[in-house]
């Protein structure tokens, strides 16, 4: 990886704001972002990325190449939690292994957005359909995680709320998988962006386009604070999980790069697909896991994703993956 590329990524204001927040928490500065604001920033970023993706999709149209990317995204969203589960079973029980696997099988929208920012800086384009791929990759891991538990858990520790031993409350699972706020807002704004096209995008661009980088920087400041607070729990998760939180994303990235090359994705699309496969969810999946697999310890699935994988990806991962892609694509 070229040092220039790494420095260019780290010296990006948004990434530096993340580390500003991270060090604030580590140094115990009382810096705090009032609670409703991070949720607003998070919604803003999802709306902006969804809307812009829909607009780009309207420009490019839904072609065979788009469907190919979407199928690849689905494939990885199903495969990653399955092999992650078996790796995690070396050290963890079924419940924790399934919950961590689901976390790593899903994606991080903010990592995707940071990668999009990185490509913009380099002047490399990617297709708007990658946002659709991101939306598709959010949920399958939740369902796979629950299927893994129902297959491998010998006996549920607790009866479910209806008094039977069934793991699945279908309504609850579908609700969490398909209607969780990030999937709902991403899909909704993608459709709005697609339907309203250029006219629609121009109407909202002053808010969702021009202010984007500043809002991302503000949001990452809060993410840094939250990740820094989680860092104190690192000792509790153990060296196996710390190693897993770095090595699995890199392994997923290599698989994704291989698939992207075989299926002829462009350089920009390949990086975004790789980042999706290498990232872990710390918003949608933990909420679903807390509800569906209460036996699993949330510290084990939130801390590695938020305090290790996310900082690794936005600082070293993105330029590293891009360097590999650049060398292979030429």
């Amino acid at each position, binding site marked *: 990886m070229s040092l220039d590329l790494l420095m260019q990524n780290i010296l990006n204001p948004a990434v530096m704001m993340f580390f500003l927040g991270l060090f604030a928490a580590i140094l115990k500065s009382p810096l705090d972002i009032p609670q409703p604001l991070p949720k607003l920033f998070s919604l803003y970023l999802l709306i902006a990325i969804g809307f812009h993706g829909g607009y780009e999709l309207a420009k490019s149209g839904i072609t065979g190449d788009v469907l190919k990317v979407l199928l690849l995204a689905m494939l990885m969203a199903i495969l990653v939690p399955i092999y992650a589960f078996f790796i995690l079973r070396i050290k963890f029980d079924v419940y924790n292994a399934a919950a961590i696997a689901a976390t790593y099988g899903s994606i991080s929208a903010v990592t995707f957005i940071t990668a999009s920012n990185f490509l913009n800086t380099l002047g490399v384009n990617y297709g708007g359909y990658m946002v659709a791929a991101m939306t598709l990759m959010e949920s399958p891991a939740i369902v796979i995680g629950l299927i893994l538990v129902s297959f491998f858990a010998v006996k549920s520790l607790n009866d479910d709320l209806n008094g039977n031993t069934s793991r699945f409350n279908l309504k609850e699972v579908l609700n969490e998988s398909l209607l969780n706020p990030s999937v709902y807002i991403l899909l909704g704004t993608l459709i709005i962006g697609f339907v309203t096209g250029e006219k629609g995008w121009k109407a909202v661009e002053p808010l969702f386009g021009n202010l984007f980088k500043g809002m991302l920087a503000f949001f990452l400041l809060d993410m840094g604070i*939250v990740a820094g607070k989680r860092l104190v729990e690192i000792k509790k998760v153990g060296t196996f999980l710390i190693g897993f939180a770095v090595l699995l994303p890199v392994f997923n990235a290599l698989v994704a790069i291989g698939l992207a090359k075989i299926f002829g994705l462009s350089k920009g699309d390949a990086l975004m697909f790789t980042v999706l496969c290498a990232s872990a969810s710390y918003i949608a999946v933990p909420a679903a896991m807390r509800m569906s697999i209460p036996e699993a310890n949330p510290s084990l699935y939130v801390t590695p994703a938020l305090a290790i994988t996310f900082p690794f990806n936005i600082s070293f991962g993105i330029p590293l993956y891009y360097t590999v892609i650049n060398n292979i694509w030429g």
Partner: protein
Amino acid sequence: MEKAKKVEIVIDSIHLNHLLEKLQKVGVSGYSVFKDVIGMGERGMMAGDELTDVFKNSYIFTLCDEETANKVVEAIRPILKKYGGICTVSDVLWVK
């Protein structure tokens, strides 16, 4: 003043709606909720600073007669058993 039962519940915010549905089903006609409750318990620190509600509690209290309080306890016991949380019932005087 009238004798009544005060039921207090602390539960993961993520299960709040489900719990409130149970309360309404057993005939609780009113309740108050404090969202974003932080604290420490058997599931560790609930710092309340996460982007999800995974590490955040909610506090619910309601006043009712003894019969309804018993129904509430039976209705929410499986939730507490499965997801954790606490529930206390105490005698209070309700100013009317």
